[in-house]
Structures are given as C-alpha cells and as structure tokens.
C-alpha cells in the first residue's frame, strides 16, 4: 500500500534562507508523487509532480523536489524563502485507485 510521511509538522525559516520540507514515501511500485501548497482559507495548489521522467522536478515559485528511490524520499526545497511562501505544504502519493493519499502537512513559517 502507498503512504507518505511528512517528517516535520512545523518548519520556521528566515526570509532569504533555504527551505527544506521533508517527505518519505512507501510504495510497492514506481509512485506518482506530488507537492501541494495551501495558503490560509484557500484551496490546494499544485507545486510540482514526479512521474519518473526525471528525478529532479522543478515546480512553480522556485520550488523543486528530488526523488531518491534509495532513500524513499521526495523532499521539497527552495534556495531562498520569501514571505509569501508561508503556508501549509502537503506531500501526496497516488494510490492507484483514482485516489490521492495525503501527508499530514508541514506548516512553513517565514520570518523577516
């Protein structure tokens, strides 16, 4: 069965410093993996998606994620945080049955 684990419930960074949001997955086959972002009282917006074409996936707003099969990880990174990046981030895996499986979420705070 597929699952995802987001290793940090809260991450706090200063503006201009790097962002690292960690996600480990479990899958019996090559997974489809996603990162979504949710700003307060908003819907979820797709940041990026991994589909086995390339292990380093570039997304919107300067985010990228690297798929590491040996570590079963799909961590989200950004070189320099902006105040507007403050939001909740979800790591997601496709279950294979028309459904997505969501991680518990990581709340990112960005301080001036």
């Amino acid at each position, binding site marked *: 069965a597929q699952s995802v684990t987001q290793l940090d419930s809260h991450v706090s960074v200063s503006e201009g410093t790097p962002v690292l949001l960690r996600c480990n997955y479990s899958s019996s086959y090559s997974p*489809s993996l996603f990162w979504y972002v949710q700003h307060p*009282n908003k*819907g979820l917006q*797709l940041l990026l998606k991994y589909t086995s074409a390339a292990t380093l996936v570039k997304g919107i707003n300067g985010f990228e994620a690297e798929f590491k099969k040996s570590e079963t990880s799909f961590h989200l990174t950004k070189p320099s945080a902006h105040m507007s990046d403050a939001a909740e981030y979800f790591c997601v895996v*496709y279950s294979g049955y*028309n*459904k997505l499986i969501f991680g518990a979420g990581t709340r990112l705070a960005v301080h001036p």
Partner: protein
Amino acid sequence: SQTIHQWPATLVQPVGSPLSLECTVEGTSNPNLYWYRQAAGRGLQLLFYSVGIGQISSEVPQNLSASRPQDRQFILSSKKLLLSDSGFYLCAWRTGHPEGTDTQYFGPGTRLTVL
C-alpha cells in the same frame, strides 16, 4: 482551460439544519470529482468520489451524502448537521480519461461552521 467553482465560500449553520454545498467544473467533460474535508489542525480526509453521473463512492461512513446530477456538478449534502461536521470542504477534479494524468485540481473551498 479548466476551472472549478465552489459555493458558498463560507457558511454558518445551526446544529440539526440541512446542508448543500455545490461544486462545478468548466472546460472538461466526464471528470472524476472528489469531496474532501479538512478539520481544524488536521490533514485532508477524502469523503466521496465520483467517476460519472450518478456514480458515488463513499470513503467514510458519516452524516453526509453526495450526488452527481450532471456531468460537471458535484453536490455534498446533509439532512441534519452535527458540530463535528465543521471544517473546510474542498472539491477537486481530475481527468476521467484512462490515459490522462492522475493530478487532482482543487477548488477554493467552503468554510463550514456548525454552531
């Protein structure tokens, strides 16, 4: 391009009252449609999904029901709301084409408060 709408944006209802939330999708045909709930401080819980008109799959036994009267319309209902029904309700769609992407696209959500 495709767009997804939800209304109302916010709703405050008394316990025991009925509920109807609506979701519509434009720019695509025969989509898969989903209802999720996000309770305060918790992740997303899949409530229902539909692969076609009149076809509803329920994920969690509860006080809610869903219907799909038209191809691009998905409705979430309750006959009598409970306090525990409070939360942020999200509708999502993905292409129904078998060869299509498994990516889901989300609406703006409805904030429901049951008092």
